[in-house]
């Protein structure tokens, strides 16, 4: 989990949850395993077929704005996307990412520098992004969130805590 190496899929500003996971599927597709095939359908039809585990999405401002639908995160975490780097995230989207153990990294400088299609490295522990244009730092994830990450997401984390209480 600490190190991620993957190819970049770069997009623009204000990408909303409707184009990340189409609203028309929110009530018809309920199995997380089926969600990746619709990911970013209305934004980049090539994404769902081409994405590889550990690939990194790079977005502009306010990534994930719009509705609070969690499928817009799950369709990417289930596709084993390594991380999302953006200039900023919509608040609930950001929380949904961390709770689904999908690293959401705010680093505007890196977003400017990273090129679409290049392969980059991310060190989550040290808060470092290495790309062709150089090295960029971001605040490492706080410990409370790291625990959720290490458990594999909030569902697993809560399960463990409940079990521990018994």
């Amino acid at each position, binding site marked *: 989990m600490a190190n991620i190496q993957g190819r970049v899929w770069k997009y623009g500003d*204000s990408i909303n949850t*409707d184009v990340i996971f189409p*609203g028309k599927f929110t009530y018809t597709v309920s199995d997380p395993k089926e969600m990746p095939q619709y990911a970013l359908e209305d934004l980049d039809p090539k994404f769902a077929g081409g994405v590889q585990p550990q690939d990194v999405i790079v977005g502009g*401002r*306010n990534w994930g*704005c*719009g*509705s*609070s639908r*969690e499928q817009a995160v799950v369709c990417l975490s289930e596709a084993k996307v390594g991380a999302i780097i953006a200039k*900023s*995230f*919509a*608040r*609930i989207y*950001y*929380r*949904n990412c961390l*709770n*689904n153990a999908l690293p959401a990294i705010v680093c505007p400088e890196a977003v400017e520098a990273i090129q679409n299609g290049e392969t980059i490295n991310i060190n989550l522990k040290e808060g470092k992004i290495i790309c062709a244009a150089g090295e960029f730092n971001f*605040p490492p994830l*706080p*410990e*409370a*969130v790291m625990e*959720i990450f290490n458990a594999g997401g*909030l*569902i697993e*984390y*809560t*399960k463990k*805590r*409940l*079990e521990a*209480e018994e």
Partner: protein
Amino acid sequence: MPLTFAEKILAKKAQLPKTVPGQIVEITPDVVLSHDNTAPIYGLFQRMGGVKVYNPDMHAVILDHATPAPSTKHAENHRVIREFVKEQGITNFYDIGKGICHQILVESGLALPGEVILGSDSHTPHAGVMGAFAAGIGRTEMASIWAIGQIWLRVPESMKITVNGTLPIGVTSKDLALYIIGELKADGALYMSVEWHGEAIGALPLSQRATLTNLMAEMGAKNSYISPDQLTFNYLKDRARRDFEAIYPDENARYAVEMEYDAGTIEPMIACPHTVDNVKPLSEVKGTPIDQAFLGTCTNGRLDDLAAAAEVLEGKKIAPGKRMIVIPASEAVYLAALQAGYLETFLKAGAVIESPGCGPCMGNHMGVPAVGEVSISTANRNFRGRMGTKESEVYLASPAVVAASAVAGEIQHPKDI
């Protein structure tokens, strides 16, 4: 060290002397709100191994999004929720027709100064009108709170909005909020705690203050706060469910952003399709034909909103071929509007009155537009497809302007009909 409201309340809840923006704290909220989505959250709770909720008294479960049930599927969903609250011993349960969740939290004395309210609904910041810290969260994390009673929160940066002066006659807090959203844009307060200051805010009745905190969700805010004052305390006098202790920001607190506005310069504003920050003065969009006018929602479905619309509609008729839908925000508002004679005014004008709930606000039922139609609404969102079909347009405005537009059949100023 002087603290903002958010820094102070989260420090208190986390039992820390202070907090700083960006810090992560673990807290136990005072109230957790869920609505028709209670059933799917319950499913997640069970997947986590949950059997009994951490504290049934923490819950407020309010059915409002599709009530009364428009289909068997919705009815099944409601049935599961009724069984859930019974089995878990949740007493703060409001069945269909009681009202919209954000309105009920305030009306029933569950939104209290100095408390933390988390809701699985994006307009939860509404409850900040009572001086609470109120924020929306996702479904999985709601299920997790049900199970373990705790959640991580990032201490937000704070934005201070000071509004001086007095709003001109006929201009409401809806116009003020739309004006500010138009200026600062949909991500203007992203992840921030928005505090309202200034004499113009203190002069507003509670219901109009709530329109402000409600609409901050459309600027990306985590929560929005208005200092409780005598008006707040009087309102809570026979209503508050518990003793509470108000929390105020410190005098010299540090804000990430400070904005100042002069209320006297605000005019009636309209949010145009298809984003809430696409705001124009009414004077620029006057004359745009509409098919349907909708008065209601958690943003503007309260008694003074209905009063403002009734004043415009008194003795008038909805334009031929056009429709108007009225949905009071709660049972209490419905009853008060009945007693005040507003409902009679609406009926005589030709409007349709429906039972309290969200109705067509997010396209569920009770008056969704047809393909190609144009709506003007008192709601808080006008995204493409929001009211049901992508091929329709939604304009957002204050209650009086919505009523005037229904009479004119086109977007219109109340004084011009």
